[in-house]
């Protein structure tokens, strides 16, 4: 079973607009960590939203962890995403009015199962946060954390319940060089432990070495050079 399998996918936001994504084939194996390089405007955010089930393609098939998202209803995709996909964004990953631990357990509230070996979402969240060096900040307001700390909280949230796929959209671009390296190390260590597949997107090619495989979005997405292609 592959983690992600796209075939002949095309997507546009509105019928009157041109395609933003045209991908004939993209496969990510289970547990594989893939680096996807793409400059801004190459449609990467849209591609990630398609894989995450936020949008459904107009044509083609999107399969994630053996489930055909492109054939599901919106609410089925929402449930699927809650259960099986962890997201990490560039910045502002966290809900500002929730404290650290509440942010981490959010996916559990929307249907993700706690990992084996843990009796509650809180317990797993604490375990993850401790491992990520955030032990002292469990009940801190997220707005009081540094950006590096916030990104690590986002990692904990993506990892909780060991989802089959983690999608990271430029998660290091707001970090300085030291924080970036430690973020990548952390991610690698924990993803290995949870055996999740990772789809990591960045415009910074220098990060590629940390991953099993590197792809270029420009090559994959035939729509990426269209002017105004990505929204």
């Amino acid at each position, binding site marked *: 079973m592959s983690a992600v399998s796209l075939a002949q996918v095309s997507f546009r936001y509105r019928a009157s607009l041109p395609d933003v994504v045209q991908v004939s084939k993209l496969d990510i194996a289970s547990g594989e960590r893939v680096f996807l390089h793409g400059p801004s405007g190459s449609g990467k955010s849209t591609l*990630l939203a398609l894989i995450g089930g*936020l949008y459904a393609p107009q044509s083609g098939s999107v399969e994630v962890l053996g489930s055909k998202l492109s054939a599901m209803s919106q609410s089925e995709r929402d449930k699927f995403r809650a259960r099986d996909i962890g997201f990490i964004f560039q910045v502002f990953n966290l*809900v500002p*009015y929730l404290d650290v631990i509440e942010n981490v357990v959010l996916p559990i509230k929307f249907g993700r199962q706690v990992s084996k070996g843990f009796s509650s979402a809180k317990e797993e969240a604490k375990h993850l946060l401790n491992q990520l060096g955030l032990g002292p900040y469990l009940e801190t307001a997220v707005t009081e954390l540094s950006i590096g700390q916030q990104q690590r909280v986002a990692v904990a949230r993506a990892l909780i319940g060991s989802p089959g796929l983690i999608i990271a959209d430029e998660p290091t671009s707001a970090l300085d060089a030291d924080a970036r390296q430690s973020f990548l190390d952390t991610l690698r260590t924990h993803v290995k432990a949870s055996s999740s597949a990772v789809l990591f997107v960045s415009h910074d090619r220098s990060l590629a070495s940390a991953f099993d495989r590197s792809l270029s979005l420009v090559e994959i997405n035939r729509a990426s050079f269209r002017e105004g292609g990505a929204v």
Partner: protein
Amino acid sequence: MSGIFSLALKSLWHRRVATVLTIVSISLSVALFVGVGRTKEATRDAFSGAISRVDLIVGPRSGTLSLLLYSVFHVGSPTHSVSMKAVEFAKNQPEVDWVVPFSMGDGFKGFPVVGTTAELFERYKYRDGNAIRFAAGQAFQKDDEATIGSDVARSLGLTLGTKIVLSHGHTEDGDGFEKHEDHPFSVVGVLEPTGTPLDRSVFVSLVGMAEIHRELIAESPHDHEDEHPVATKEKKDLKGHEHHDHADDHGDSHDDSHDDDHKHADSSFEMDRGKLKVTAVSGFFLGAKNRMESLNLQRKLNTWEGDALLAILPGMAMAELWKNLSIFETALSIVSFCVVIAGILGLFVSLYIASGYRRREMMILRAVGASPLTIFSMLAGEAVFLVLAGIFCGAGLMYAGLAMLAPWIERKFSVAVGLVRFSTEDFWFAFAMVIVGCVAGVLASINAYRSAMHDGLGTRF
């Protein structure tokens, strides 16, 4: 979805300053709206409750409203008078049960003085037939006695036995321009509060009323002819001739009929004090033996060939008065409605501003698996919470305010403000507010959701 409720509450708490301000703005507009509604009702009740169980009010021919205003509300004063002959005529009609004449136009320290008969206290009812009761003492019996309303007693600190000197001329406050130290009235009765203009009145006998003008009449017989119900001073001079001084010269026909009056006068109206005799009054209240006869009696009195009379049905006149006042009522309603609109706009604005910076939050919730419906219900729920909190705070505020102000309002305006009471109108209003709040929440979240979706999962702002 159990988490949604706590998420919404946490989000509101996170934005607590905006939350509180929004609730305050909604509650102020709700308080004003409900307050205006309650005041409107109280005023209407006070107006229509000011007179009851009186079938006709009869006065000199003028306007319906002016007759109603001076007879019931003691506002303004009659410009003409009604002869005792007219009173007699009405009293002698077979359909008539009782007649209570009254004289107006004088004041005591800003309170109107009403000359009438003691029967008034039995006949005159207020608010659906409530009888007038005495807090102390009784109705005046003699012509130098006065019975006073509760407001008069309280504001002037008058008690039974106090001597008061009534003055001529109704002035806004303070005494009239002349005092008559030689004819003080003693307070023999204080009425219980009624929440009607009775509370602000001083009642004396018709002769007592005439007494107030005695010297003036003697000194300058023609000075006050237009301001006052008429007292004719009848005195036998040394030679034994009858001599008439007329303070009233408007009804020419009366002149020859004074002796007539004297002969036919019912004992209750023949109240001599010294040598005064009452020959005319401002008007009279009338009770029919059968209410169904009121219209018939009204026609009879209006077409009487004696004085030019105007008989009005209190209920109809009240309705006409209310119609005249309703323009103010409408204006008040419009203002309060506008305030409510402003409150709702405030809600819209605050939700819209919030939705602007909540785009990211919505996207995060979407990313962790919240459905659009979940997010909409959360935002709409927050809006409904704001509206409900605003409604409860506003209603609480209004009733707390009313509870504090009610005694003052009652004292100042003789308007009894009912306490906690919700009209069906209020419920509809609250319901509409909640719906509007819900719509505001959904519109704001659609706005936020659209832009969030437009952002995609990227980091554009």
